[in-house]
């Protein structure tokens, strides 16, 4: 027998997966625009706004499901987690926009060394995709992997900060390159954190334990 609640859960799952895929696309385009110097700010803004509206839709719908069906146990954890994940995806969109804005404000950066950003971007893209599929498949083990990747992201960021301080004393220092890399690394580091939170949510849905790392 299908419960009425299941129909609602399916709909909210579809919404959240749409958000997940859109947020992956946005971060990918933002990084590509930085890499290739293509201005995509308006398009990314539009996508980020769309994510924001979808997030509100998820929250409204989740509230309605809770009020109407009074779900418990795993059903309730699922709805709670969808709300949290929706917030996470909307943040991905927002940081994608921030990345695009760096290019528009102080770019382009044809002669900057982008290797640090490229390295971190590769990991972070994987993390976003993993966070989306973990939610799709309710894979509780993703959170472990995400935290390991997050550790490497954090260390890249920290090392860059330290290195940048010493670099600024050198003569051929280019502030534009330094500032853009630093900002983008920072946004990527934030995205990485949010990907971990989404992994936490999935872990919570499946096990009932909200904090897998600690």
């Amino acid at each position: 027998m299908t419960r009425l609640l299941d129909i609602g859960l399916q709909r909210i799952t579809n919404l959240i997966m749409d958000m997940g895929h859109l947020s992956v696309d946005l971060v990918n385009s933002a990084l590509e625009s930085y890499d290739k110097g293509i201005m995509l700010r308006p398009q990314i803004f539009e996508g980020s706004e769309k994510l924001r509206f979808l997030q509100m839709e998820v929250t409204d719908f989740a509230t309605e499901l809770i009020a109407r069906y009074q779900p418990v146990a795993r059903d309730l954890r699922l709805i709670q987690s969808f709300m949290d994940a929706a917030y996470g995806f909307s943040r991905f969109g927002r940081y994608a926009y921030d990345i695009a804005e760096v290019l528009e404000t102080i770019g382009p950066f044809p002669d900057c060394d982008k290797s640090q950003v490229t390295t971190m971007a590769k990991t972070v893209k994987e993390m976003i995709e993993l966070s989306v599929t973990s939610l799709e498949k309710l894979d509780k083990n993703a959170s472990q992997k995400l935290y390991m990747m997050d550790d490497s992201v954090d260390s890249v960021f920290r090392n860059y900060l330290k290195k940048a301080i010493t670099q600024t004393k050198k003569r051929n220092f280019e502030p534009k390159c330094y500032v853009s890399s630093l900002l983008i690394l920072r946004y990527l580091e934030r995205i990485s954190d949010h990907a971990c939170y989404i992994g936490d949510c999935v872990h919570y849905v499946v096990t009932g334990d909200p904090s897998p790392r600690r």
Partner: protein
Amino acid sequence: MAIEEPIEDKEEAVQQTAERYKVRIEKVNGWYGSKRAIRDVNLNVKEKTVTAFIGPSGCGKTTLLRCLNRMHEMTPGAHADGRVVVDGIDIYDKSIDPVIIRRRIGMVFQKPNPFPTMSIFDNVSAGLRLNGMNNKTIIREIVEESLRNAALWDEVKNDLDNPGMSLSGGQQQRLCIARALAMQPEVLLMDEPTSSLDPIGSSKIEELVRVLKDNVTIIIVTHNMQQAARVSDFTAFMYLGDLIEYGSTNQIFMNPEKELTERYISGKFG
């Protein structure tokens, strides 16, 4: 391994652990003739908390509840075994008078059942008089206090001589609660007390349960998971006569341990 403090006085240690629980249910079986309706139930109930019994109908909630004040054995052919320890005293001990037990452990039933021929006042005072109390002033005081505690006083204070049956269903149920409270019970058993009430009547009873638990230990049977979640601190899930899972209501509600509990509370049965 954790290092534990040595227990000097074993007797005292046992006593102290026991005292944290108002009611201890130990290996209780409830029988109707040769049919065993509840099986080896073990459960500890903390003082001044609300415990909910939930489970599909026929799983033995009422039977278990009625074993807790020796009402079960009043059904012809029915008996119980095991121990029910209230404040350290086994209520099934041979030396114990079941009448006294039922006075200390009050009960409210599924359908409000005021004494049909009695006034509101007499409904509440009947038990007192039956127990030999005849000081009119004290009776009046207790009736008023009980009706106040049952959140009914303001609605009936000018009509105390009207028949109990003249009240609405929800008011009748609160009258029955007042009747139980007049005996100043330490434990109050409630068997689906809102099942015949409308939403307003039900929510009044639920509010009352929350207030009463400051003074009384309450065990409530309900078929409504949401009601259990609203009013109780602990929840016991029963199925086919077995106690399947028992824990804080929050844990049972958010993260039940057993698959069966999960399936029942989220409506995935059948």
